[in-house]
């Protein structure tokens, strides 16, 4: 009998989403354990003592697998089903390179551009974010998804831009992207969020909006403080 799979996650987290989509695409049944990140459980702290973050994948009774993109690679390798990463080593390298770019260069400027108060600092982050979006637009190369016709690793890595962009912009009252801009990315967002496996683990938009609305003041305070310290 297959070993039980459990995923410790938190609402609205794009990192948890990556792990969930990977499991759905592979057809792996799992139990989702909801974590309250403001009051971390003993279970989470025991299984991820070093980073103390979600997602955490538990497969059978072996120690946990942590870090969302590592979980995606594990799910790809440990279970049968359609490949989540490309098969060719060079294509795999490109997927990993761009995922790293998104993680390290895109996420922070995007977050700052959305939540900061107006001013010079925000303008800088908006410029940077738009430059990054242009690179991702070019990367799509007219494909439906980053690696072609099927959802894969790089789409998950970029998922924060997909289902979270709209709700975040709405709650923050910010608009980074004009209605006619980045058409390939817009099509990608549509394709990604309507994919069957993806939409099975996307919370309804209204819930995401409500969730961010609840955290808005806290987030704005934190990002504005970060900028003032420099």
């Amino acid at each position: 009998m297959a070993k039980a799979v459990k995923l410790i996650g938190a609402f609205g987290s794009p990192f948890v989403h990556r792990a969930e989509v990977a499991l759905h695409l592979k057809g792996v049944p799992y139990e989702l354990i909801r974590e309250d990140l403001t009051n971390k459980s003993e279970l989470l702290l025991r299984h991820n003592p070093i980073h103390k973050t979600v997602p955490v994948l538990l497969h059978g009774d072996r120690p946990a697998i942590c870090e969302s993109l590592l979980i995606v690679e594990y799910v790809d390798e440990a279970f049968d089903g359609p490949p989540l990463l490309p098969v060719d080593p060079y294509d795999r390298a490109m997927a990993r390179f761009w995922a790293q770019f998104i993680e390290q260069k895109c996420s922070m400027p995007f977050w700052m551009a959305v939540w900061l108060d107006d001013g010079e600092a925000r303008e800088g982050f908006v410029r940077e974010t738009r430059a990054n979006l242009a690179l991702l637009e070019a990367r799509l190369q007219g494909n439906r998804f980053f690696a072609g016709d099927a959802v894969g690793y790089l789409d998950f890595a970029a998922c924060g831009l997909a289902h979270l962009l709209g709700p975040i912009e709405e709650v923050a009252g910010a608009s980074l992207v004009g209605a006619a801009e980045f058409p390939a990315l817009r099509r990608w967002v549509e394709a990604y969020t309507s994919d069957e496996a993806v939409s099975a683990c996307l919370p309804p938009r209204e819930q995401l909006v409500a969730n961010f609305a609840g955290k808005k003041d806290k987030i704005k305070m934190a990002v504005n403080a970060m900028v003032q310290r420099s």
Partner: protein
Amino acid sequence: MAEPVKLIGAVGSPFTHRAEAALRLKGVPYELIHEDLDNKSELLLRLNPLNKTVPVLLHGDRAICESLVIVQYIDEAFDGPPLLPEEPYDRATTARFWAHFMEHKFSMPFWMALWLDGEPQKGFVREARENLALLEEHLQAQGKKFLAGDSVGYPDLAGSYIPLMLDMFKELSGTSLMGDDEYPAVRQWVKEYNSDEAVKSCLTNKEQLAAYFRVKKDKYKMMVKAMLKQQ
């Protein structure tokens, strides 16, 4: 016929070292193209326009950037001893987890502790030592020569900046990261790494490396002060 392999790298760069050591461990012949990072070549800027850094691996006409992406590519594209374990679980929990730890959790405080002074330095030394304790615990629990087994692999390459730079830490930073009798498993791992045949064959001469960092010291000190202000 096999496609030619070239590595664009810089002397003293721990990132270049990761890629070079991976090629040596796999037994892949390659040509090393030396890059002067103060005067970047048109070749580098064309092949790595996004980050403009070394290393860049050229395999035939394919260019791969980012040292850890390169290491994984080398493992997957060429035959030779595997740099990651076979079993998916071990790949995820041991090899990739500890590579991620070395790259994302340890490197920042290590680098900041190296180049900062005074109170800020003390804070990062403390953080680096906490990470050393975690590393020590893992090495002791696992009981193998290297981070994911008995041969040099992906997480060791990710953390190779430690074996490369530990000796000169005190001289460069003015402070000590660990006492002589502290973290014995980490010390042993450093020793094993530096004695590995494939690694040794591409290790920059220690005096050259130390001289390189002495020259760069003021520049790096200025850079980290600016980074700290931005946080």
